[in-house]
């Protein structure tokens, strides 16, 4: 496949999120285990022989969830539940919910009643990550998850299998990071939206196939000559990247996304699992060392300073704080984040989004205005 074909395929996957999973299930006669984004050890699910499927939310018919979840609950979770109620997730055999906020902490029981599944489990991530107790506990929690997966599949997950899956995922993350770098160096050959579409698609298709495609894609891009451009470099901070259209708005105003801390962005592909350490310990270490996110208390790496540091390292001209409406943890971080960024000389703007109801016109205007302001500063 050539570059255009590969990118076309990724786009098709992202636009038809159930396509690959349904196909895999039919061909392999296997089980698909969904997860809410993204702090879930997919490697364990994969090693169990299941298809780990990242539920990416949807933009239609959120009201289907209204009988179960308040309209002032997080729209990502509402839209995911709505997808299940609409039957659009009927290929799922299971679901793992990482408890990273009150909504994800409380939704499992609701899900169980509204849309029962044979395998439904909370992944109870530690929310403090600095002290030794967190690591000990997380290793135990990972062992619990492993045991549940083993019971569901009816046999043990061998250490060898798990190591193989870890290797596969490490390779996958390395490829995606490579792609990120290529995008940064040569935005003309891979646009903002194309890059994040690939990351989105990566949660929706088999990893083996994905790695092959990524390898080809990287090779194709590397052969292209880099076109030096004078782009406005931006960092996006938030919980989830939604909607993808914002990337077009940034692009058309001359911007390039050079970094983020999003659960379905760079935070998803950042950091590898140490293959020299016992697998569960290594999985725990990756989780505990992930970049700061609002759901966690990370005293050793405060999020606002992390953002400033990222903006500095990435030579960003500005930061977009993409705020998912009703996301409580994110909202509590906002003011201090924006204060720290502005104090460090990085212009920042908060843009509110919501699955289902974001006004794209208004978003475009705000992005344009922000980029004009930031761009003016660069040139002036």
């Amino acid at each position, binding site marked *: 496949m050539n570059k255009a074909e590969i990118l076309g395929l990724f786009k098709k996957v992202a636009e038809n999120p159930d396509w690959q999973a349904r196909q895999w299930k039919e061909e392999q006669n296997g089980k698909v285990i969904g997860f809410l984004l993204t702090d879930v050890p997919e490697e364990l699910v994969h090693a169990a022989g299941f298809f780990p499927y990242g539920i990416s939310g949807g933009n239609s018919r959120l009201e289907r969830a209204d009988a179960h979840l308040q309209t002032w609950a997080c729209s990502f979770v509402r839209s995911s539940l709505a997808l299940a109620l609409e039957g659009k997730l009927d290929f799922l055999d299971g679901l793992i919910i990482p408890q990273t906020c*009150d909504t994800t902490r409380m939704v499992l029981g609701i899900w169980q009643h509204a849309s029962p599944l044979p395998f439904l489990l909370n992944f109870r991530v530690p929310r403090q990550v600095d002290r030794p107790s967190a690591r000990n506990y997380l290793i135990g929690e990972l062992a619990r998850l492993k045991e549940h997966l083993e019971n569901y599949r009816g046999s043990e997950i061998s250490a060898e299998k798990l190591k193989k899956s870890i290797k596969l995922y490490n390779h996958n993350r390395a490829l995606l990071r490579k792609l990120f770098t290529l995008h940064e160096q040569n935005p003309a050959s891979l646009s903002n939206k194309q890059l994040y579409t690939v990351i989105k698609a990566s949660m929706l298709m088999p990893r083996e196939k994905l790695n092959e495609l990524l390898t080809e894609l990287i090779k194709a891009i590397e052969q292209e000559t880099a076109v030096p451009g004078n782009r406005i470099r931006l960092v996006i901070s938030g919980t989830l990247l939604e909607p993808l259209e914002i990337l077009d708005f940034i692009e058309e105003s001359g911007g390039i996304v050079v970094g983020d801390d999003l659960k379905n962005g760079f935070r998803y592909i950042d950091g590898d699992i140490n293959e020299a350490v016992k697998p569960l310990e290594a999985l725990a270490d990756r989780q505990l060392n992930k970049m700061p996110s609002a759901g966690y*208390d990370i005293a050793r790496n405060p999020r606002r300073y992390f953002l400033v540091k990222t903006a500095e390292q990435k030579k960003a001209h500005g930061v977009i704080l993409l705020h998912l409406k009703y996301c409580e943890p994110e909202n*509590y971080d906002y003011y201090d984040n924006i204060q720290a960024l502005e104090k460090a000389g990085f212009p920042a703007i908060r843009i509110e989004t919501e699955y289902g109801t974001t006004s794209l016109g208004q978003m475009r205007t705000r992005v344009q205005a922000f980029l004009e302001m930031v761009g003016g500063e660069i040139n002036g």
Partner: protein
Amino acid sequence: MAEQKAFKTAGLMKDLMAKYYTKGKESREKGIPVAWVTAVSPVEIFYAAGLFPYYPENFGALAAARKVADKLSMVAEARGYAHDLCGYARCGIGDAYADEHPVGEIVKPDLLFCCNTQCGSLPKWFEVASRFYNAPYFLLDSPQIGNEPDKLCEQYFIEQLKELISFLEEVTGRPFDYDRLKEVLHLSNEACRLWNEVLDTAALKPAPFGFFDACFHMAPIVTWRGTQEAVTYYQALKEEVNERIKEGIHAIPDERYKVYFDHIPLWPKLRWFSDIFAAHNALVAVSQYTHSWAYSFDLERPLESLAENYTEEFVNRCFDYRVQLKVNFMKKYGCDGFVLFSNRSCKPNAYGLYDKRNVISSITGLPGVVFEADMSDLRFFSESQIMAKLELFFEQLSSR
């Protein structure tokens, strides 16, 4: 409606709460560190360490009851804290930035301690406060457990208690006093026992004491739990309730029904609600909320016992456990129906109520209703909508 006879103990409460706020100020002057703590957290450790534990949630409830939550909240909102965040947090953050302090200034922390059994809002609020006041913050993380006690989570909790104790030893510069901890745990046990004995009288028909009384009398079990003051207070309250039983003084004049209420009350509308229920001869008898403080510690295994009590608290439990808990309360108190408050400020208690209503009705056969509002902020209060729901509920009660 006949005016209900006021509790004599209410006077004692005013003194006690005044003393609590004074003690906060005095502690600061004497160099005793003020530690912010959360309502469902092992405060016993802080009393044992000789610190003054201060409850910012109580500040939020006070601001709400005095109907100034919106004013304080707007100061926070001006900085980008949205009005859908926890109302207590908005009051606390608002007060930090405010020039005017309609309920007095929130006591500034020397350190902050949060246990996240209750919710994810408190830890984030405390993180904000830790930055604002430049004071160290300790999060005691408590993953949610299911129907059964969970050894993994208990072990995690115990390890963190040890980390907390080391942290406090550093703050105070002296070794932690485990003998003192035993005394504090004993006092906690006593206060919890007395408090729950008082709550249980709501099962009598007619009852001398109900949920709205409990809302009034609960401040000491939250803020003074672990001290002699709390024990003395609830001894006095229990005596008074027993006198009322003897004298035939009832919580409402003509009790015909008992109602279960979930969860926190609407503080600024406490009186409004209590009058409406009384006018319909319905005693709101019980809520899981006021039963949150029902600990029983084993003094011989202090840390293990703290871990068991706090991780097994219902706020740290799954959907099904909470349903069963509510059903059990309804049975124990002989309830005829239930009212569930979908509280914008308290997401973990609000999420799931729509399904829980159906599940509870199918288990118990009792009528139930869910209404929407905010525990502290009247901008989300629609009297007509709530009245319409309650009227329908009262009709169902009377037709049973």
